[in-house]
């Protein structure tokens, strides 16, 4: 039997070879990847023979093969393709990366791991996913792409940061909740990742579970985001250009009252409080000024150019890039724009058989001009445009008025024609004509220069043992410059003497890491052991600021620090940063049996300079287990469930993101007083706080259970369930005031849980010539404070609004910073309802209320409305976050649509200035209560709001924050290879992108996406722009 088989085989071989010999053709061509880049080293085999060749550095190959034969193209990491020759002489072939391949590699911190054996909850984004997102800040590119990461822009100002929370809010406060960013092994703070250029990024990995993040020990509690930049590939020099330009416009404007409506409401308010009408003839006021139209730019220009060159030989490879971005803001564009230039050089060199040297270096320069106050009730163009009365003209054209006060006697700002910008005589305080305001800020900007890089030397001592030493650093310079001319914006906002100031800051952070990796295979046992040691120092540096007053100039362009200004007209400030140091030892074991049973164990010991003598060091252990069920012998290969990996783990990580020296009672200055009649200050010293040598790590333990699967061949599903518990949350302890210290000592005061489910589902299929893929993710999150130190039953929230004070509160059983205030129960329609509203003892609850006032819920039933009646009104943390990406390509065309959103949160809509009685209203106010039966949710308007309808924090201010946003739509067309190659290009692709085209939401403010230390506080957030761009992608 055996003999027969062998005989047949030999016979066929001979037959084939004879046949082949007779009809062989010379086939040549080029193999390239999805980006059109040549792939060297692809193995090309004539099917059924041993005859093979490989593509060269330029991806070219040539082989003799039977004219009716088949070529098999294979390369690690790409799907193998069998291509029938059909007599052709030239076959150019695109190899598709096997994104779902078991060969895919994931960056796990201090190394990589095959995806098939990864046991943690790690989400990845690859360069090809990033390429289609118009370059902005990197956080924006992550939004909606990975499950369990909540991202909300803090402003629509170009270049503005976003707020990122990995698996919920881990601790109290803002900065302590930022994830740890590690760029090519260098720890950079979240605020400082603006230097990254999107197209330089090879991959981003988000380590979500504690057991994965534990390798970063003390700083990993809030999640770790690993960024790997691109490296060169050996082979032909590749030049890649990507550029686009486009125009932005506001996606939405508010509906504000016009002058006639405004006049009528103001009269009504005044009369209701016993006053006289303010305007005698409201209809004569007409439509008035549309302040929003005055500040919004519907064609803000934006462009981006990126050029990269990469290549190398077998021993040395390099990747270098240049980028330039410029973006105008949609609000008051002359004082809102952003510019970034960056440069990168990454290279790797094989020094000898043993030694490899590599380095990465990125430099960026950013300049940002901002509108000043955003998301603030205290002025700025947005707040002014919303609150200013529509009866004031943008420019006062009436010569009689323009020559009278206040225009005649003050240094008012004038337009190009010399006419003064209108000054409101009705709405005052910080609300000023936004066009005039813009003219006073022309000389203001922020800048930053960042240099981030690392260098490593690796020695492959044996084929199993490697030693790597890495030195990394980040050098950051940043500052701002401001010229304020003499000006008169209003009676409240005016400057009598000009000033020119600048602040310059520098910080340096470095780290050194030594890692020993042993990796070996014993039969089916795969073992990798990593031992590491690290030292980290950051916050080295300081800064200074200087301001000169009374420069002998009036235009910002003439400002100079070289003017000889008297010492008495200068002010300066200088400070040192306080160093933060960590010393660490860490170890990791990865073990698997035949890639079927998986184990990862990590332990890290960190010492931090931020803790007291009694608790300087902390140890953070973790483990993960995995089982690839479908690898079991009993699992028969089938078309239903192709892959199933069950995994789970537990780990503890830390957080030392608190101010320095909080465990010590320091005697510090700043408790000053002025003696003598010459106004000189004597610095006073005092104990700032009480000692707390027991201050210790805030610990976050996390259990993660999940599975990864592929079913029906085309579907991928990953599900994770987690419970994250933070204990001993570090926060200033609110001690009694009679102790007499000015700074509250830090203490471990609270515990908090985050529970959630994350789901990522993908489907990819080829229908004829159409490639179709859809990827969705959704995460559910529940945040609950489980313990607050006994001396206070709650912690006053971090968000406040004007004179309301805190509008949130943190208390056991509620989510962190939940909205807290009065609950309304409709509006009193008549006097009878006021008197009828009594508690069980018959006490009238709101005896002083008038018809048209809110009926407040008397929660405690004591017959009066007091602070004790406040209750929790909802959370600002979205319960659900989701994203959906659709990709289609057909021949040269490709189409992508991406939508993202959040649900289950409330937004505080505080766009109107409460203490400015005459501030304008949104048109909702037209539906106010004006008599019995007219409204049950919008109270009467009066200048004497004794019921606190508008002054009290209540559910009246809260709105549903759910939204779904069509974030990105892109349509591209790639020229055929032949056409491209005619001009020497390997790829020419043109595309049209629309950003932020549609947002589905019930929210009445500009934009439901509101980041910041506390999500969902809208005091006039700079809204996200809608942009349409045209771009080109070229490769040579």
């Amino acid at each position: 039997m055996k003999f027969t088989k062998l005989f047949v085989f030999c016979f066929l071989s001979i037959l084939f070879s004879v046949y082949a010999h007779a009809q062989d053709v010379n086939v040549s061509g080029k193999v390239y990847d999805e980006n059109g880049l040549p792939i060297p080293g692809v193995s090309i085999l004539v099917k059924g023979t041993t005859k093979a060749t490989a593509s060269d550095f330029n991806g070219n190959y040539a082989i003799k093969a039977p004219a009716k034969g088949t070529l098999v193209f294979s390369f690690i990491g790409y799907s193998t393709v069998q291509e029938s020759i059909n007599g052709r002489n030239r076959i150019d072939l695109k190899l598709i990366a096997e994104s779902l391949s078991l060969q895919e590699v994931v960056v796990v911190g201090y190394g990589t791991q095959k995806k098939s054996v990864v046991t943690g909850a790690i989400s990845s984004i690859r360069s090809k996913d990033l390429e289609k997102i118009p370059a902005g800040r990197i956080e924006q590119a992550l939004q909606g792409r990975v499950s369990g990461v909540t991202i909300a822009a803090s402003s629509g100002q170009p270049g503005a940061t976003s707020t990122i929370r990995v698996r919920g809010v881990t601790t109290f406060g803002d900065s302590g909740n930022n994830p740890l960013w590690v760029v090519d092994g260098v720890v950079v703070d979240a605020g400082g990742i603006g230097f990254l250029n999107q197209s330089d990024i090879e991959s981003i990995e988000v380590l979500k579970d504690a057991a994965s993040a534990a390798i970063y020990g003390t700083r990993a509690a809030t999640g770790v985001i690993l960024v790997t930049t691109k490296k060169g590939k050996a082979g032909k020099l590749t030049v890649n250009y990507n550029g686009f330009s486009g125009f932005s416009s506001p996606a939405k404007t508010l509906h504000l009252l016009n002058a006639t409506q405004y006049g009528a409401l103001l009269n009504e308010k005044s009369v209701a409080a016993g006053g006289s009408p303010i305007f005698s003839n409201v209809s004569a006021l007409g439509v008035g000024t549309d302040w929003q139209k005055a500040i919004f730019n519907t064609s803000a220009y934006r462009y981006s150019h990126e050029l990269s060159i990469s290549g190398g030989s077998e021993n040395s490879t390099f990747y270098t890039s240049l980028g330039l971005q410029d973006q105008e803001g949609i609000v008051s564009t002359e004082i809102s724009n952003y510019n970034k230039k960056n440069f990168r050089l990454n290279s790797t060199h094989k020094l000898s058989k043993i030694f490899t040297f590599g380095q990465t270096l990125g430099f960026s320069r950013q300049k940002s001009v901002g509108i000043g106050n955003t998301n603030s009730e205290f002025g700025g163009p947005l707040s002014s445009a919303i609150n200013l009365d529509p009866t004031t003209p943008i420019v006062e054209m009436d010569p009689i008025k323009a020559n009278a006060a206040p225009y005649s006697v003050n240094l008012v700002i004038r337009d190009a024609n010399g006419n003064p910008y209108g000054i409101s005589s009705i709405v005052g305080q910080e609300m000023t004509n936004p066009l005039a305001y813009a003219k006073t800020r022309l000389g203001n900007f922020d800048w930053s220069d960042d240099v981030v890089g690392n260098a490593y030397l690796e020695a492959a001592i044996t084929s199993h043992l490697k030693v790597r030493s890495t030195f990394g650093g980040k050098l950051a310079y940043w500052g701002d410059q401001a010229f304020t001319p003499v000006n008169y914006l209003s009676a409240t906002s005016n400057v009598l003497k000009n000033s020119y100031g600048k602040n310059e800051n520098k910080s340096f952070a470095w780290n050194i890491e030594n890692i020993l990796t042993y990796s070996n295979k014993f039969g089916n046992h795969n073992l990798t052991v990593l031992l590491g040691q690290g030292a980290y120092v950051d916050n080295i540096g300081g800064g200074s600021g200087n301001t000169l007053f009374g420069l002998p100039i009036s235009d910002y362009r003439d400002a100079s620090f070289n003017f000889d200004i008297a010492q008495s007209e200068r002010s300066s400030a200088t400070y040192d940063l306080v160093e933060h140091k960590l010393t660490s030892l860490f170890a990791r074991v990865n073990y698997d049996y035949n890639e079927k049973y998986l184990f990862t164990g990590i332990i890290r010991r960190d010492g931090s300079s931020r803790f007291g003598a009694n608790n300087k060091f902390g140890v953070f252990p973790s483990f993960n287990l995995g089982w690839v069920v479908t690898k079991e012998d009993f699992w028969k290969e089938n078309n239903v469930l192709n892959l199933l990996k069950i995994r789970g783990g537990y780990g503890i990580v830390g957080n030392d993101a608190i101010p320095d020296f909080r465990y010590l009672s320091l005697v510090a200055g700043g408790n000053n007083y002025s003696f003598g009649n010459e106004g000189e200050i004597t610095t006073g010293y005092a104990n700032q706080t009480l000692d707390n040598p027991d201050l210790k790590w805030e610990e976050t333990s996390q259990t993660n259970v999940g599975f990864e699967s592929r079913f029906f061949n085309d579907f991928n599903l990953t599900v994770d369930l987690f419970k994250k518990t933070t204990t001993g949350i570090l926060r200033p302890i609110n001690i009694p005031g009679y102790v007499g210290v000015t700074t509250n000592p830090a203490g471990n005061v609270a515990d908090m849980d985050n529970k959630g489910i994350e789901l990522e589902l993908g489907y990819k299929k080829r229908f004829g010539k159409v490639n179709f893929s859809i990827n969705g993710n959704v995460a559910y999150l529940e945040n609950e404070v489980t313990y607050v130190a006994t001396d206070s039953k709650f912690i006053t929230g971090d968000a406040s609004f004007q004179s309301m004070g805190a509008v949130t509160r943190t208390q056991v059983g509620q989510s962190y910073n939940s909205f807290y205030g009065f609950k309304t129960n409709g509006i009193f329609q008549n006097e009878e309802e006021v008197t009828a509203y009594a508690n069980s003892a018959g006490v009238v609850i709101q005896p002083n209320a008038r018809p048209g006032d809110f009926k407040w819920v008397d929660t405690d039933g004591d017959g009066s409305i007091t602070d004790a009646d406040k209750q929790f009104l909802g959370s600002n943390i979205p319960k659900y976050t989701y994203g959906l990406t659709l990709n289609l390509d057909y021949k040269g065309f490709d189409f992508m649509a991406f939508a993202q959103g959040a649900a289950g949160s409330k937004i505080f809509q505080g766009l109107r200035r409460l203490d400015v009685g005459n501030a304008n209203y949104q048109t909702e106010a037209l539906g106010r209560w004006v008599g019995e039966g007219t409204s049950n949710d919008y109270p009467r308007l009066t200048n004497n709001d004794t019921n606190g309808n508008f002054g009290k924090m209540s559910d009246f201010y809260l709105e549903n924050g759910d939204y779904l946003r069509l974030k990105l739509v892109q349509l591209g067309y790639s020229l055929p290879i032949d056409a491209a190659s005619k001009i020497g290009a390997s790829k020419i692709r043109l595309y049209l992108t629309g950003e932020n085209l549609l947002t589905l939401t019930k929210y009445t403010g500009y934009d439901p996406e509101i980041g910041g230390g506390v999500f969902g506080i809208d005091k006039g957030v700079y809204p996200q722009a809608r942009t349409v761009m045209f771009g080109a992608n070229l490769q040579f």
Partner: protein
Amino acid sequence: MKMMKIKYFFIAIASVSLGSCTKDFVDLTPKGAFLSDNYYANQEQATAALVGVYDPIRKNTGGFENTIAMMNAGSDDHVAGGGGATDGAGIQGFSNHTLTSTNIPGSFWNDYYQGIFRANTLLVKLPGVEMTEDLKERFTAEARALRAIYYFDLVRMFKNVPLLLDPLTATNMYDVEQATPEAVYAQIENDLLAAIPALPGDVPAATESGRITKGAAQAVLGKVYLFEGKKPEAAAILAEVNGTPGATNKYGNKLLANYSDLWVVANKFNSESLLEVSHTSAGNSDWWFWGSGADEGNTLNVMVGPRSYSRPTGSTAPDLPSGWSFNCITQDLYDAIKADPRFGATVFDLKALKAAGEADYIGGYQDTGYFLNKYLPRKSDVRTGGGAAELNYKQNSYIIRLADTYLMEAEALGSGARAQALLDAVRARVGLLPVPVTLAAIKNERRMELAGEGLRFFDLVRWGDAGAKLGSRGFIVGTSEIFPIPSRELQGTKLKQNPGYN
């Protein structure tokens, strides 16, 4: 060559790495501040610590939550005002006597206790400081006098307060209980009596004015006695300060000839001033540290200014910066003081100016059109240098001035020639003829003379008139005389809320 370089690379890394493994690497010493154990070693440090004890006295007119703005708002002479019914919940709550443990600004409690904590710490440390015994005695006296001043405000505002004479620690801070007001008053007397002999009668004006003098401590003690109802003791000690009515006292104090000169910004530490709070623009005060220890500006100024003030061309109205329209003067005080020679210095009648077309403004909450001229912000006083212009007014404010001690002594005496002479001297200075001395006459004179200086509410409470004068404003006799204890002070502590509050 290449291998050599690699070797050095490793040596460099190894040495840095080994150095970073030790505990010393993460053991840092703070810079720019001192450890508590090492401080208070010499005269320089003791002086800096004493300055820290003085710092909270600035509360009189410093920061949004300042004593004069608050106490004015609760009296019948002023409304709270401001931008709206919720602009400053504490000041609004006191104005209509609806204060609760949550809307009472905690700083009226905390700031004084910060001064007390610093005084207590300094008093513990002073014996070990290297400096002359004379200077130690003076420092001790100043710290005790300041402690007495802070307790005097606390006991009048909150009545039932903890009496702490040693700094608390993390271990004993929750064991504290409230003392009786009598015990607090006894300690105040004790501190002042001990301080008076060691305090200087006079200080160098250029460098030390503002520091507590013998006369200042005696004036405070007299006031303390008056509030305790110890009239003979009050009269006796106040006579020490007042000397011959109308003449210069033994410390050089004398009524200013011109009443309105009291409110000239440059007229700091004038001869009528006994205890004065110092303000300067040199601190470049800014919003981010407003009201804290480094804020040296007078905030009352901007608070009482009219909103969006403007003048037409050729107007004769004063050129004023705008403010926030707090502490508008009530029609009641306006009517009472209209015919008094002190009217112009006390009331800025913007209502009249607006009616005459001489000036314009936007009315704030509870606007009456009458503004507190004594502390109105002045254009000439607007800071043009660093910091926020609104926060760098440098007008000093009085805690006690000679006209006040004259009237307090007259009140303590009740009748007689000296009482008459004291009352006459106050009236004569503004050109008013004598009236027979009676308690009613003294009460009226105090209201006219000291209007808007934050004293009226405590006067009404002391006289038992608060219920009658403030009943229409929501004042409840038996409760509203004192503030509620801030809620924070009740959480986890042994403190009890004041009666009538919850």
